[in-house]
């Protein structure tokens, strides 16, 4: 399956989930599929969308949080799996778009390309629910169950690398504006106070 197809399936099944996207391809494709303001799109801190999603999930334990990670970002911070497993947030689902390359910079190969078993790494870190999916119809079939099961779970979406640059444009507003749109969206949806009475 292709990354866009896999992301489209996730977007259709997200339900009420709040999403956190790793920078680059994951964020750009999620924006293209959802145009959602109740999603956080990382601009930097490669590898740490996972930690950001964990902090959000622990803070809103009744809200499903979906992490749309990518293999390059996961490898930048594999230790996140230890922390996620130890915290055992039931509302956190970790998806990894795995194409074996650094797609955003033109498809250069990942370290240890095609020989790394991320599911085995996640299980070794303490995830009880970890699987890899590489066919689109299989993803369609499994995703309702993944969405309904208790987290933390870890799902690798094995997709084909694209040739060259993936040209999906990034979201159309930048850092501080995205902060306020995301925070205000969560305030409206969940009745929480992210910003104080003076707006900061």
């Amino acid at each position: 399956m292709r990354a866009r197809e896999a992301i489209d399936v996730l977007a259709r099944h997200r339900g009420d989930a709040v999403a956190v996207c790793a920078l680059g391809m994951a964020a750009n494709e999620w924006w293209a599929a959802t145009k959602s303001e109740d999603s956080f799109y990382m601009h930097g801190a490669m590898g740490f969308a996972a930690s950001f999603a964990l902090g959000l999930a622990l803070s809103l334990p009744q809200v499903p949080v979906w992490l749309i990670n990518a293999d390059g970002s996961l490898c930048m911070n594999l230790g996140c799996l230890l922390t996620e497993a130890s915290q055992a947030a039931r509302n956190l689902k970790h998806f990894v778009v795995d194409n074996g390359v650094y797609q955003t910079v033109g498809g250069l190969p990942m370290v240890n390309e095609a020989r790394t078993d991320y599911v085995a790494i996640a299980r070794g870190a303490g995830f009880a629910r970890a699987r890899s999916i590489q066919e689109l119809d299989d993803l369609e079939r499994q995703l309702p169950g993944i969405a309904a099961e208790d987290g933390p779970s870890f799902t690798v979406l094995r997709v084909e690398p694209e040739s060259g640059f993936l040209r999906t444009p990034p979201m159309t507003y930048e850092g501080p504006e995205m902060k306020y749109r995301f925070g205000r969206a969560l305030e409206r949806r969940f009745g929480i106070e992210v910003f104080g009475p003076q707006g900061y």
Partner: protein
Amino acid sequence: MDVTEAIHGELTKCGVKLAASLPDDWVAPLIQRIAADNSIRHVRVAREAEAVAICSGAFFGGVRAVALMGATGLLTCTGELATLNLRHQIPVFLIVSQRGSIDDHRIYQEVQGRRTIPLLQAYDFPYHVVDRPDEIASIPDAFETCRLQKRPFVLFLTRRLVKGSAA
């Protein structure tokens, strides 16, 4: 005055409900005290930048958070502090041991002592040094300044504060 008890009390006044930590020996007693408080969700991390990003995510859940680490750990997460917290103007409150001070006779801490504050100044990250027990009461003001300035704020704990003047 028990210093860790006093800092813990001020963090409680700030409304802190989540703490993410990776210890060095100066902040370890404070981390252990916070870990024993059931009203604060404590997250042990494998790398200090995880603590930064966890606290940043907690901010959007409306939860006040603190990251605890040593000075060496702070140096490891300057990239994430810049490209996550500066980029998006997300406040994150860090409590950090001020290693490499003139009374910290550890050769492996001397660079941290010389270069950490100039590095924070280069990034324009505000900081505040707590050197005496009676200055611990400044923590709520520091926490509010962090939120108001919408960026990383480092509260340094000195050796004299955490180890005592006789240590």
